[in-house]
């Protein structure tokens, strides 16, 4: 079975297809004949995460990616997505939407039991919605996703009804996310501390121990019965145990993988991927996250980017392609879309984002930035053409920070003074809240194109009391607002797609953002680890089908 290199520079959908093909190939006899190709039950897998250790293992609380990664192993959602992005059954067998889009009914898979013995029924789902909507839970991601749900009702033990304030075409996509997974209502009644330490779900593994700043131990759920519709086997998981470790240092993670101390590592940096691809004993899993692409948002609320000509000039002056090629060494593909390449409705517009410094010069002249100061920067009315760019060192990996420096260098030739301001996460949030930025790069993971509404609807400029807001380019366009609102309420798939396409054309053509590449999400696996795939919802790996070929 040929498994050495997977998916370099291939479209993510093709990646998933390729992975599935490899999984299928695993079922046929191995040509070498030396190793078994039939899944073997048993063994312990050690996973090493470079993400911050979650502060709570219940992803209802807060709701970030590190929580999604680990909770995918022990919690499950009502629905999932398959590799094509189609919604498929999981804990809900089937669902119906009323004609006015205000009532949804979900029929649950029968005879599913949480690992504490509580049965999965309509009341359990109601308890989860209530938990997510309770301010005491302090849910951010799940809370936002359920904003239109005003009431729930148990029609029968198997059928739960959601009543909405307005139609929500993103409801199923939202419910597929790990941040809205279904937990035992009995367990949710415990204190938040207890629930954070060991949430109880229906998943293939159970949290049995959590030594903070060291590891989480997950053991097999021996009564497991509810795999998603696209899993490759049924019944209990093959692995007996997963040890989920936290190894913050990138080089140590890779060394531990090479030394055989761990079996899977995440947050793999470009240079490490290139090294690993030369190795026969390591496999690479490239699973870009859904939602928005990684992009630079241009703050259209203040000088200089309140002028569309200057925004376009900046985009023309930035040589992103060459920088991505040299810094990411082929591990990331340039994006020309506001959406991740795994989003089927993403619009890609390569023509809009070319590197054309001559045109950039002309645009700046036209915008009135005609003079240059002694350092070569453009000047208008005595003010230098300065672009303040706060960079979160927690969120931008070293290669990305170098990419910004390259953009700084090419933008300087056109006359932009791009000032990179590296800072930690809290200071970065503060800079955004104070509107002390002209450009910024902020990741945003969400399933489905509705992320566009969160990032670019003018209502997202209104800051929360914290000062944080999601519309960082501060786009305020009534036409765009209408398109995004209509799309979020349109239940006809084709009409919805058309609305989102129009919205993206408007957005990209307004030069509010400079797309870079997908949100990178690379994993390296010891070649003994078989059958691992990323769940197509938020691209977190699932180890339910995984077995160890030792």
């Amino acid at each position, binding site marked *: 079975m040929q498994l050495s290199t997977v998916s370099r520079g291939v479209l993510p959908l093709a990646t998933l297809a390729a992975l599935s093909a490899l999984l299928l190939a695993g079922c046929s006899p191995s040509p070498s004949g030396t190793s078994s190709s039939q899944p073997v039950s048993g063994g312990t897998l050690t996973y090493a995460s470079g993400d*911050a250790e979650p*502060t709570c293992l219940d992803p209802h609380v807060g709701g970030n990616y590190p929580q999604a990664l680990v909770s995918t192993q022990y919690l499950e959602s009502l629905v999932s997505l398959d590799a094509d992005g189609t919604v498929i059954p999981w804990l809900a067998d089937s669902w119906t939407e009323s004609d006015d889009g205000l009532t949804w009914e979900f029929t649950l898979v029968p005879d599913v039991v949480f690992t504490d013995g509580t049965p999965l029924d309509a009341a359990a789902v109601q308890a989860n919605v209530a938990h997510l909507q309770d301010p005491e839970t302090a*849910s951010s*991601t799940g809370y936002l996703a359920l904003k239109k749900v005003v009431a729930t009702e148990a029609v029968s033990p198997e059928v739960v009804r959601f009543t909405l304030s307005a139609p929500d075409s993103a409801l199923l996509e939202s419910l597929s996310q790990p941040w809205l997974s279904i937990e035992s209502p009995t367990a949710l009644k415990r204190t938040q501390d207890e629930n954070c330490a060991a949430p109880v779900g229906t998943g293939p593994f159970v949290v049995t121990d959590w030594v903070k700043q060291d590891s989480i131990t997950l053991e097999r759920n021996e009564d497991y019965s509810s795999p998603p519709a696209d899993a490759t086997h049924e019944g209990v998981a093959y692995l007996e145990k997963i040890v989920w470790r936290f190894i913050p240092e990138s080089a*140590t993670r890779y060394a531990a993988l090479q030394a055989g*101390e761990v079996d899977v590592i995440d947050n793999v940096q470009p240079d490490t991927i290139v090294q690993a691809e030369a190795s026969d004993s390591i496999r690479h899993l490239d699973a870009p996250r859904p939602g928005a692409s990684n992009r630079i948002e241009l703050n259209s609320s203040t000088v200089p980017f309140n002028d569309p000509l200057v925004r376009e000039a900046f985009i023309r002056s930035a040589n992103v392609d060459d920088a991505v090629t040299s810094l990411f060494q082929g591990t990331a593909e340039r994006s020309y879309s506001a959406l991740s390449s795994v989003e089927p409705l993403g619009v890609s517009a390569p023509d809009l984002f070319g590197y054309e410094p001559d045109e950039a010069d002309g645009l700046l002249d036209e915008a009135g930035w005609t003079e240059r100061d002694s350092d070569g920067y453009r000047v208008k009315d005595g003010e230098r053409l300065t672009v303040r760019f706060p960079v979160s060192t927690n969120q931008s990996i070293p290669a990305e920070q170098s990419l910004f420096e390259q953009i700084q260098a090419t933008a300087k030739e056109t006359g932009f003074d791009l000032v990179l301001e590296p800072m*930690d996460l809290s200071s970065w949030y503060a800079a955004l809240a104070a509107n002390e930025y002209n450009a910024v790069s902020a990741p945003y993971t969400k399933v489905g194109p509705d992320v566009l509404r969160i990032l670019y609807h003018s209502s997202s400029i209104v800051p929360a009391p914290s000062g*944080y807001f999601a519309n960082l380019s501060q786009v305020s366009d009534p036409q765009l607002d209408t398109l995004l609102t209509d799309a979020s309420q349109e239940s006809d798939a084709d009409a919805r797609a058309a609305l989102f396409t129009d919205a993206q054309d408007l957005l990209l053509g307004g030069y509010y953002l400079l797309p870079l590449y997908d949100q990178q999400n690379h994993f390296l696996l010891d070649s003994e680890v078989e059958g691992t795939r990323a769940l197509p919802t938020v691209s977190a790996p699932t180890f339910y089908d995984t077995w160890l070929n030792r």
Partner: protein
Amino acid sequence: MAESITDDRPRVRGRVVVAFVLTRLGGALFVLWAVATLTFFALRLIPGDPALAILGGPGSQASPEALEAVRREYGLDQPLFVQYLTQLWRLMMGDLGRSYSLNMDVAPLVGVQLGGTMQLAFLSLALAWLLALGLATWSTRGGKIARSIGSGLEIVAAALPHFWLATVLILLFSIWLGVLPPISTPGIAGLVLPVLTLAIPLAGFLGQVMRESLLTALESPFVLSARARGESERGVRLVHAIRHAALPAISLSGWAFGSLISGAVVVETIFARPGLGRTLLNAVTERDVPVVVGVVMIVAVVYILMTLLTDVASRLADPRLRAA
């Protein structure tokens, strides 16, 4: 304190001891207060909202309700000075508070992590002493070349940055030779590389000091008279010279222990070991004020204890100090 030598009446002597203990205790309390105050304000003066840090994390957008709830729960809606006084009062009551980011009380958290760091620090200190003593005695016994080699090794070792040394050791022992794990393991094997990383630079420092004073001692009159009494070279070195040479190194050990704990921040992160250093690093990036204050307080207490211990050790090693 000259009186105490001449005045042997037990009462007066007792009073002097009490005064000594009280001064020490007062000094220690002052240090603890200053540490708590400085850390609190330093952390709060940096821009950033702890409530967001509590809920936040990349990609998650906290709802206003959630933020309000968190502000109330952690008292972040109070004026800064009130928060400071509250924290100080709690500290005096022995309550280290509750971590913003880890959802648990600080005292048990720090208590659990203290063990790992102390183990690392003590083992490293012990190994550094062994290496330094070994190198110092070997290089002073040998000729001029041995001395140059010794001093060269010490200078290089002392200058090695922890993160570089750690990476090289991982490359050498975990990847090339494949004999030692690069991350902490249940057994002793996982301790070897972290301890080496901390011990080697420290051994360089200690070695330089020891070799200097060993050389001075070997040329001093009391060694000459010991030799004149016919003591063997080994006896001269073990009983007299090394004892003399160890003195400055002992008083350096208090400082060294502090430097080991700061080195633990790097080493624990690189080798993925649980401990105070890693806790501190996480807490600083998360703006987790109670944990930072808690860790710094514990480190301050340990540092004060270590200084006391080195005082006592110096007195034991040097009869001249015992009189005072």
